[in-house]
């Protein structure tokens, strides 16, 4: 008897939730919790934290994030093409090549812009 693989994955996920969940939920119950402003202070090598913690966002790597979103889609497209590479006629594969070349130019330009520190 073979079950549907997706069902097996769901069962595996449920097993994982049941068996790993207690690792954090149980210690919460039995651990002593007494709020103490000094012990709960964020770690800053003994200094008293100043200002808000969630403010320092670096824009410097934002272009790489955008490139990631674009090439995520391209990567998935290439996988779909790669599985059946043998079954695809050469002309169509050439089209995929053209697709990649068309994307190469903006990728190069984006990299160039990303590396200019004064932009960010």
């Amino acid at each position, binding site marked *: 008897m073979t079950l549907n693989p997706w069902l097996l994955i769901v069962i*595996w996920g449920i097993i994982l939730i049941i068996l790993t969940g207690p690792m954090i939920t149980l*210690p919460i119950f039995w651990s002593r919790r007494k709020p103490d402003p000094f012990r709960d202070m*964020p770690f800053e090598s003994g200094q008293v*934290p100043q200002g808000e*913690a*969630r403010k320092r966002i670096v824009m410097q790597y934002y272009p790489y994030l955008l490139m990631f979103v674009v090439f995520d889609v391209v990567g998935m497209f290439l996988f779909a093409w790669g599985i059946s590479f043998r079954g695809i006629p050469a002309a169509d594969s050439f089209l995929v090549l053209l697709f990649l070349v068309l994307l190469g130019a903006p990728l190069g330009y984006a990299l160039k812009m990303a590396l200019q520190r004064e932009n960010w």
Partner: protein
Amino acid sequence: MVNLPTTPADILPFIIAVVTSHTFITLVIFPGFIHLTIVVMFLTWYERKLLARIQLRIGPLYAGGPGGILQPIADGVKLIFKEVMIPYKADKPLFLGIPLALVFLGALPFAVIPFGQHWVIANLDVGLVFVFAVASLFPSMILIFAWASNSKYPFLGGLRSLFQQVAYEIPMWISALSVVMLAGSLNLVQIVNAQQKIWFIVPAFLSFIVFFIASMAELERLPFDLPSAEPELVAGWFTESSGAVFMVIFLALYMKLYLMSSLITVLFLGGWWGPAFLPQPVWFILKALVVATIIIIPRGVYARLRVDLLIKVGWTRLLIIALANVFITVVLLSTGVLSAWGL
């Protein structure tokens, strides 16, 4: 198919039939939960021992057995009984929930990793993409966890981790593309079966290099461990975690180490294939452990890169090398050079 029990007398045979079924064994014992726990605990001990040897130290020694092999259990018992510290003004549900999600996501892809011809939980048609899709959820989880800690070091570390993992994911995918083209399938079992005559490390050597480097960067291993660079950022994105939370994150990280080693084994090193004097799963685990060793060793040897250089290398060098290998694969496949090996 086992029939559901109808009378009380049927319940015991039903339970026995379920427990001895192949599905149950794969889920719970062999490629499933027990095997995973043991290997991951072994890896934590193994890394410490290995690094100690490199640096002429002794490493764990006292906790039971030869060479302190029970050290992971001692650590686990210690950590699970410590207080769960939640930093001031931290986002409590996210701070406690994200570590669990991390360990869940680290273990979920093992459902499709084949440890032997029949030793796989779910023989999925889109297995490789499934692994990549699940692995691509890690960066956002880390960012949310860093945000939830409400502390400066974790937030900086989390951002670095995000950018680094994002920069190395695409080279990783493109290098795996060569393997997919060679095997003509996304099913990991079929990918391994296609390597019976020749391991894909031979026709796709450049891809292997790229994949290896990218997986080291994804795992935040030295020389790519900027997100947790100790001198600057203490422990990076998990600085604020302690006790049980730390233990779960630690488990998730080693789970991911084992996952990446297994994936490299499946894609490039011929999976379970090897001389027949050892059973298939043993070959697989041996290969994965060798890969894990090679991933661990630089931690005792190298210094780390600078973060902007690191990200730049990912997008310029590695992506281009991976694409070059895709073109090599196209040429190899269309000229039929590999037909001698049944590809």
